[in-house]
């Protein structure tokens, strides 16, 4: 049971957050009691609860690493770079 989705905390009130999962999907009432989230953090949400904070520095590093790997495939480079731009931030 690993279905968890990363989303950005855009509002926070007590134990509950409004989380933006991108592409117009926003969920209210995500319980953040199990993590120490701040507005602007990305969290992994599983069944309505944030279970972990996504380390933004590590995520950026990962995305950079991926684009290096993928850019080594010339045919795919343009399409992949377009997709990568839809990543963090």
């Amino acid at each position, binding site marked *: *049971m*690993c*279905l*968890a989705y*990363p989303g950005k905390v855009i509002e926070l009130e007590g134990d509950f957050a409004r989380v933006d999962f991108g592409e117009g999907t926003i969920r209210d*009432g995500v*319980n953040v*009691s*199990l*993590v120490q989230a701040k507005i602007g953090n990305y969290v*992994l949400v*599983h*069944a*309505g*609860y944030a*279970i*972990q904070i*996504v*380390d*933004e520095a*590590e*995520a950026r*590093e*990962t995305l950079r690493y*991926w684009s290096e*790997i*993928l850019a080594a495939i010339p045919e795919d480079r343009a399409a992949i770079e377009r997709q990568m731009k839809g990543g963090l931030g």
Partner: protein
Amino acid sequence: MHVCGSHEWAITHFGIRTLLPENVEVRAGPGCPVCVTPAADIDAAVRLSMEGKTILTYGDMSRAKGSGMSLFEAKAAGGDFRVVYSVHDAIKIAKENLGREHVFFAVGFETTAPPTAYEILEGPPRNLTFLTAYRYVPPAVEAVSQSPDLAVSGFLNAGHAATVTGMKAYEPCFKKTRKPMVFSGFEPIDVLISIAMLLRQITSKEPKMDNEYTRAVTWEGNIRAQAAMDKVFDRVDGYWRGVATIPSSGFKMRDEFLDCDARARFGVKETPGSEQFIPQARCGDVILGKIDPPECPLYMNVCTPSSPKGPTMVSAEGTCKIWADHKILASMRCRI
């Protein structure tokens, strides 16, 4: 081998197996919580629903049959259940219907147990109890790694479960078995990189506990979530449906939370003797990763997504359902 239905979905959906060399095989291990929930627990939930309690559970769980009806079928027979997305919804529904007993059928792995533990600590409404059937994955990885039949060379570990437990939860298993391990994310490229990392460990004969999912998995994991689970649950032996009883892989509510425990309130007995699957069905072998779905005689003739005969075809994380949805009709064993 991986032990996560979400990994099986990513691997199948993105055709990862078609990209691998002929001598590399990724097998789906016991990573589907609905699939491994004992028939006896499902039967208990169905019985309670027929006795006038409202059962609250996740969608997949309601369609899995125990030794008799599923909750979904029980509803047609007068039983009561409602699908919820989260334990929070279960609490809300119970509060809105104080005149009726509600039971949250709490199924899942250690990714799912912390929110339930948290809500039990917060004090749920008196008319809500929990029928917990959570399973803990690290002991299952240890059990599987010791199986000569399966002959696993390395593990792709479930990234999201590990965000909760931390990599540390796998240290005892790693020290004992020295099997290569990579904690993997769920994007297709995460999986490919993780497989490459595993192959590197295998060929260099240097097994490690490697982390590919660095943006979410740490050594320590989520301490708050772990603390909540430790306060509410003891770990006990757990029966994995069709597989085996694996030591320390089950969660039992501690005595001080007996008020929240549906097993205590409604006298649910531990009866593992129920029939696990229908005759000829090889769900257990699929769950363990011994066979691929097409090797079961019922796959895609008698047993299909619209007419599932076992939990592996019911659940979104079941290997049979995932393969069937992607129209895979042949086994993909590696040819050495």
